[in-house]
């Protein structure tokens, strides 16, 4: 016995009990092999990007109708306002110094590392940043929030008022870009001050908001565009629906209609905007579903019982659902659970279908050179075979011990099935593209070509409709907050601008028929929608030299392939250096990332907005309209590539067999993910949904020894109502405090000590006790046998409870109101010696930070070395003793 097993053995059986899960050594040993296979996949993706560079560029840098993101902006801002304002009752608890944390403690325990150089004030330590380097240290983030500096209730209410105004302005599209950024910054400030309340929905809001403010979503359905059109109309420079260009833009001469020496531009109503932010939103949506689908590996999901258990969680109970579980738990709900799981895993096919159809519509099918086409095919085939190799290698640690088939048989089945599938896929693709299948049945004739295949099987009809059904079920039956509404809102971004316009016109017609005033005449008459800015108009404008700096560009010079290859080479060198633990690994990585932008910047300075032409650069596809000039394209493509790579690395599934490369990869991309505020986790109801209802009770023993129940839980009889419309964050807080966030228990207890004192003439109570209460939800079979139950009765009969934390309010740190709080509440001040604070002075630590940093670095290097040695030993040990293994997580 050696390495990790010997270490565990040395610590004794207690260590095994203490460990959350026992790592599967066989799975751990597979890590390096799987890591190299994944790396090979990444190399092939880079090769595809180089070989198919024209389509990649055209996809990311194209322009599109702004109405899709305009509509998304409005709905998103609306649900964001609901999401933040449904915390109204808990605002002061969450975000002020009269809440969970006192101001100093919020800095120290919520963002301690970031505020390392920030003093508390008082004896020997000034309040605020110690010096400029402390400010720079803070600026590294990631928990940026004004509420870390000012968090009195007065300031907070001003803060929230500005947030409301900025978000409403963003919704209405007034100063859209500025208001969007302001609202985002203030939203992030709330999230960074108080992570305790956050759930998956908040992560959706955070990440999608970042993409949304990067877009020009104010170009449609906004006050900004209305003001612009009004101004242009007055100046006679707007292309009207009933005039030249019909709203899509036109070049006219002053003598009405004929071209002349001095053409005049009539601007379009809906100008084209860069499409890449919407594409990021779409891919993010796929990431959410794919991640959460892949994470659902538990037995409850495979048995089909997840919907049953989710509906029986009392914190999420919008309506009584026990009867549903009783009738449908063992039949229909299982079908629905499996359908949802299948749909989440397959949602990416919808985006694939959208991209394929777009490329065909735009005539961007294949590169012209035969060698490129063959190389591309080889890369796609390589990816398919690598996927098989990853499955082959990982299979031994993924089959249950009681599997009926042997490993060899399973491998044979998987490999054979996969090879047959990819062969059929390739042949079928070619067949549908070149020779569509015609089906005749009872005189009807159907043609199945690539377009209709993508429309039906990879189309939005199937995947969005399933998604809509899933989220509507959640919305109506479960009080789970704004997750379902925000996900449905994101579906708007799956429609293009003209589709959104058609839907809104239909809605307008229906409303007009119902007598609702204010509809435009053309909407009432059901005329064609206002067209998007026409590409012909853009090309003509450019040909006549009327284009302005911020407008789309036709066919500018492209980045040479050599620069792209050099950039990828730098990134690969950086990754390999990181694997080998070379100290300078970041340099080639940074150089590789910076190279395209630097080249584009040089081109911009020398050759103007269109860039310079080098020997191996080509012109863009004939007449293709790009959203930016040469430099803009370099910056945007670099941003997109870096972000996609970082999200991909961040999304590596958390398993024993990925541990060896997942952790280092996430460490590398972590600064990007946190500083762009796009860090994410989508392990919702995964690997299994929780099967217990957990509640939290808070009891106060006052100074006279009398016991009080504060009824803090969202589920307490005092707070619970049915049907339950408003989402109460206290449910999430309860589950966090009594579950994985145990460190919050003391802070909750201390908060209640302080609040009791402030509300009882300053008298600090004797103690605050937090009690956890829970019961296991009966299985679907038991429910079917026994009939539906009343949650309160079931809790009383089958529930358990235990004390999880008790704070002695007189002596516990931060359990007494400070004199500042007492003054604020008109209470007499007390001797400072009776107030115990949880914060520690930081000046001494800050002054010796060099020494500390050096120690940390040395310690980390030593730990890394030891861990690597242990891993090697564990790997050897695993291969020597391939016997009974704990199951793979």
């Amino acid at each position: 016995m050696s390495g990790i097993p010997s270490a565990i053995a040395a610590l004794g059986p207690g260590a095994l009990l203490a460990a959350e899960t026992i790592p599967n050594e066989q799975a751990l040993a597979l890590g390096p092999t799987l890591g190299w296979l994944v790396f090979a996949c990444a190399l092939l993706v880079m090769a595809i990007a180089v070989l198919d560079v024209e389509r990649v560029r055209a996809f990311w840098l194209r322009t599109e109708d702004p109405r899709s993101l305009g509509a998304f902006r409005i709905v998103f801002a609306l649900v964001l306002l609901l999401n933040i304002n449904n915390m109204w009752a808990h605002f002061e608890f969450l975000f002020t110094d009269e809440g969970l944390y006192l101001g100093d403690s919020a800095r120290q325990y919520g963002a301690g590392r970031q505020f390392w150089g920030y003093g508390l004030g008082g004896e020997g330590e000034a309040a605020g940043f110690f010096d400029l380097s402390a400010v720079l240290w803070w600026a590294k983030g990631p928990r940026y929030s004004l509420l870390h500096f000012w968090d009195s209730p007065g300031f907070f209410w001003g803060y929230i008022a500005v947030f409301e105004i900025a978000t409403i302005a963003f919704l209405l599209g007034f100063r859209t870009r500025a208001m969007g950024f302001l609202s985002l910054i203030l939203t992030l400030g709330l999230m960074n001050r108080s992570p305790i309340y956050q759930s998956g929905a908040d992560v959706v809001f955070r990440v999608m908001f970042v993409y949304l403010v990067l877009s020009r979503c104010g170009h449609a359905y906004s006050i900004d565009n209305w003001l612009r059109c009004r101004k242009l109309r007055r100046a006679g420079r707007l292309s009207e629906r009933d005039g030249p260009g019909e709203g899509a833009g036109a070049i006219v001469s002053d003598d009405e209609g004929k071209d002349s020496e001095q053409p005049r531009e009539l601007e379009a109503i809906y100008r084209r905007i860069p499409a890449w932010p919407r594409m990021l939103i779409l891919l993010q949506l796929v990431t959410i579903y794919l991640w959460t689908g892949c994470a659902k590996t538990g037995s409850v999901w495979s048995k089909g019982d997840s919907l049953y258990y989710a509906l029986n969680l009392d914190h999420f109970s919008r309506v009584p659902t026990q009867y549903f579980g009783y009738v449908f738990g063992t039949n229909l709900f299982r079908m629905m659970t499996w359908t949802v799981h299948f749909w989440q895993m397959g949602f990416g096919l919808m985006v694939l279908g959208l991209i394929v159809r777009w490329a065909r519509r735009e005539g961007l099918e294949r590169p012209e050179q035969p060698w490129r086409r063959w190389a591309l095919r080889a890369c796609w085939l390589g990816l398919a075979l690598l996927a098989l190799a990853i499955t082959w290698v990982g299979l031994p640690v993924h089959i249950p011990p009681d599997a009926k088939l042997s490993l060899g048989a399973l491998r044979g089945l998987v490999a054979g099935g996969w090879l047959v599938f990819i062969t059929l896929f390739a042949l079928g693709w070619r067949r549908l593209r070149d020779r569509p299948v015609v089906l005749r049945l009872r005189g009807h004739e159907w043609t199945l070509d690539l377009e209709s295949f993508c429309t039906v099987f990879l189309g939005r009809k199937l995947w969005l409709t399933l998604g809509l059904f899933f989220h509507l079920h959640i919305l109506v039956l479960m009080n789970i907050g704004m997750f379902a509404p925000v996900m449905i809102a994101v579906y708007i971004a799956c429609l293009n601008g003209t589709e959104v316009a058609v839907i809104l016109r239909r809605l307008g017609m229906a409303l007009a028929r119902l007598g609702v005033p204010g509809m435009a005449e053309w909407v009432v008459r059901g005329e064609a929608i206002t067209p998007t800015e026409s590409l012909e108009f853009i090309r003509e404008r450019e040909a006549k030299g009327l284009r302005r700096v911020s407008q789309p560009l036709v066919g500018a010079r492209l980045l040479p392939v050599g620069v792209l290859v050099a950039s990828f080479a730098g990134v690969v060198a950086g990754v390999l250096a990181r694997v080998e633990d070379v100290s300078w690994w970041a340099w080639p990585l940074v150089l590789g990332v910076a190279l395209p932008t630097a080249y584009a910047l040089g081109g911009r300075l020398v050759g103007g907005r269109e860039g310079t032409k080098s020997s191996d650069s080509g012109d863009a596809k004939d007449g293709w309209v790009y959203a930016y000039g040469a430099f803009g394209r370099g910056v945007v493509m670099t941003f997109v590539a870096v972000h996609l790579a970082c999200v991909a690395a961040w999304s590596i599934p958390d398993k024993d067999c990925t541990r060896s490369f997942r952790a280092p990869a996430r460490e590398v991309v972590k600064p990007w993910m946190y500083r762009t505020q796009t860090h994410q986790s989508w392990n919702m109801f995964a690997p299994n949904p929780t099967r217990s209802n957990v509640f939290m009770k808070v009891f106060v023993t006052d100074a006279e020894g009398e016991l009080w129940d504060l009824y803090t839980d969202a589920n307490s009889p005092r707070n619970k109502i049915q049907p339950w419309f408003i989402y109460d964050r206290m449910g999430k807080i309860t589950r966090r405090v009594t579950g994985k966030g145990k460190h919050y228990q003391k802070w909750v207890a201390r908060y209640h000590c302080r609040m009791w004192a402030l509300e009882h003439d300053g008298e600090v109570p004797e103690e605050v006790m937090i009690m956890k209460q829970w019961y296991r939800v009966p299985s679907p079979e038991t429910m079917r046998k026994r009939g539906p139950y009343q949650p309160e009765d079931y809790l009383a009969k089958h529930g358990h409870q235990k004390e999880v934390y008790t704070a002695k309010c007189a002596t516990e740190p931060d359990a007494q109101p400070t004199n500042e709080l007492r003054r604020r509440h008109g209470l007499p001040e007390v001797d400072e010696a009776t107030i115990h604070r949880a914060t520690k002075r930081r000046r001494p630590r800050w002054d010796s930070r060099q020494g500390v940093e050096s120690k940390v670095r040395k310690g980390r290097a030593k730990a890394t070395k030891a861990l690597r040695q242990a891993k090697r030993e564990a790997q050897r040990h695993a291969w020597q003793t391939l016997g009974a293994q704990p199951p793979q997580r």
Partner: protein
Amino acid sequence: MPISLAFVRPTGPDLWAFYLLIGLWLAMGSAGWLLLRWLWSSEEGHRGL
């Protein structure tokens, strides 16, 4: 497990919640049908990305 069709009858909140679920399915069926019809139709404006 043998399939049994003998169910406890819903009463009180269980009853209206049950009607809500059936109403939801009817509404979703109708909405789904409208969505499919619209996505199959060939109105103006291009489809897809």
